[in-house]
């Protein structure tokens, strides 16, 4: 029986694991991708004291930090969680893990466009990770759908390789992005933002060749990066009955507690407005500390 089981190995889960280990709690963390979505960030420039760090490097350091602690790390997926009398049982498919307290730090997953042929063109022009795939667009034409930070940083990264980068956004301005990114995008000669449009159709024989926009225009391109936001990774914990807000994010109090005793949540999966690394890590620390206090009582 573990004191704490943490689901997710992004910034929130990793930090919860590190704090939990430092409180000498018997800790296990199950996660699919070390660093979580942060591993996919091109450049991170708002995570002090790193003036600039690549998401991939941050992810590696997070994992090394966790592995240096007295924590059991399992690379895998929690399928579901059952609440027993005074503990929880996590099912990973080939393993059952029992723990007194749990921290849900499952973060988010990319939204899909939800239009026809999107899955067919996946890997054949449609991509959800500019950091992974940007380099395949050397001297090609790429498009990015979306207008938030993730979309603009994807466009900036792509402009390092591609000959031309379109941004397709359904609003008339980049309202949601940090001004620093917006400025860089608007100054960049390779990037052409197209506002007030949606993608209506994906066109191509076996690979993506063009997109049709809501203004009826057809734009030829070699690839399209989908950066239109995220949805919470909630499926595995659904059966616990944690309270969620109207968008499906877990509601927590200032101690990272959910409505269910012994269940904490941290990071992007919660109803925090600001979905950023520093916030996720702070949550992880708060959750582990409160678990420690609860167990000591």
């Amino acid at each position, binding site marked *: 029986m573990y004191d704490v089981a943490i689901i997710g190995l992004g910034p929130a889960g990793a930090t919860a694991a590190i704090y939990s280990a430092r409180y000498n709690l018997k800790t296990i963390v199950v996660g*699919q*991708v*070390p*660093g979580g979505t942060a*591993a*996919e960030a091109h450049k991170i420039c708002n995570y002090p004291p790193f003036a600039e760090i*690549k998401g*991939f490097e941050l*992810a590696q350091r997070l994992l090394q930090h966790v592995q240096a602690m007295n924590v059991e790390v399992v*690379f*895998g*997926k929690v399928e579901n969680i059952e609440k027993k009398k005074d503990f929880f049982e996590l099912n990973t*498919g080939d393993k059952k893990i029992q723990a007194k307290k749990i921290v849900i730090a499952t973060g988010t997953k990319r939204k899909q466009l939800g239009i026809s042929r999107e899955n067919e063109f*996946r*890997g*054949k*022009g*449609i*991509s959800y*990770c500019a*950091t*992974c*795939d940007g*380099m*395949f*667009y*050397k001297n090609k034409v790429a498009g990015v759908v979306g207008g938030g930070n993730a979309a603009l940083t994807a466009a900036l990264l792509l402009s390092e390789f591609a000959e031309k980068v379109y941004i397709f956004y359904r609003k008339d301005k980049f309202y949601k992005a940090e001004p620093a990114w917006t400025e860089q995008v608007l100054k960049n000669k390779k990037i052409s933002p197209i506002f007030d449009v949606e993608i209506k159709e994906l066109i191509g024989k076996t*690979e993506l060749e063009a997109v049709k926009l809501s203004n009826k225009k057809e734009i030829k391109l*070699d*690839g399209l990066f989908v950066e239109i936001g995220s949805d919470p990774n909630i499926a595995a914990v659904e059966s616990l009955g944690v309270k969620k807000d109207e968008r499906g994010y877990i509601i927590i109090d200032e101690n990272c507690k959910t409505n269910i005793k012994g269940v904490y949540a941290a990071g992007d999966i919660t109803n925090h407005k600001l979905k950023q690394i520093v916030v996720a890590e702070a949550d992880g620390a708060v959750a582990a500390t409160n678990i420690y206090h609860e167990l000591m009582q």
Partner: protein
Amino acid sequence: MAHIEVNDSNFDKEVIEKSKDKYILVDFWAPWCMPCLMLAPNLEKVAGEFKGLEFVKVNADENSKLGTKYKIMSIPAVKLFKDGKVIDEFVGSFPEQGIRDFLKKNIK
């Protein structure tokens, strides 16, 4: 199961030629792609369960000729070769069981 790193210059010998006698599972990856790093050990492990199958890796960053030839646009990209040709493929992270099902479906 051990694997070998294949590149632009030895791909024909290690993959195309060898795939005449057996199946070759090729993993196109890059060092900064976290999903690639998570997938590789699973591929290696599951590939070891199949007879007549060899697992090789291609660093897509260093071997752009192969990337272009096989139209790699997203990684991880995994392709199964037989008789010099790609007979099936997938992109993105796959759990162990998914890889097993993919190989079972294709390996006769």
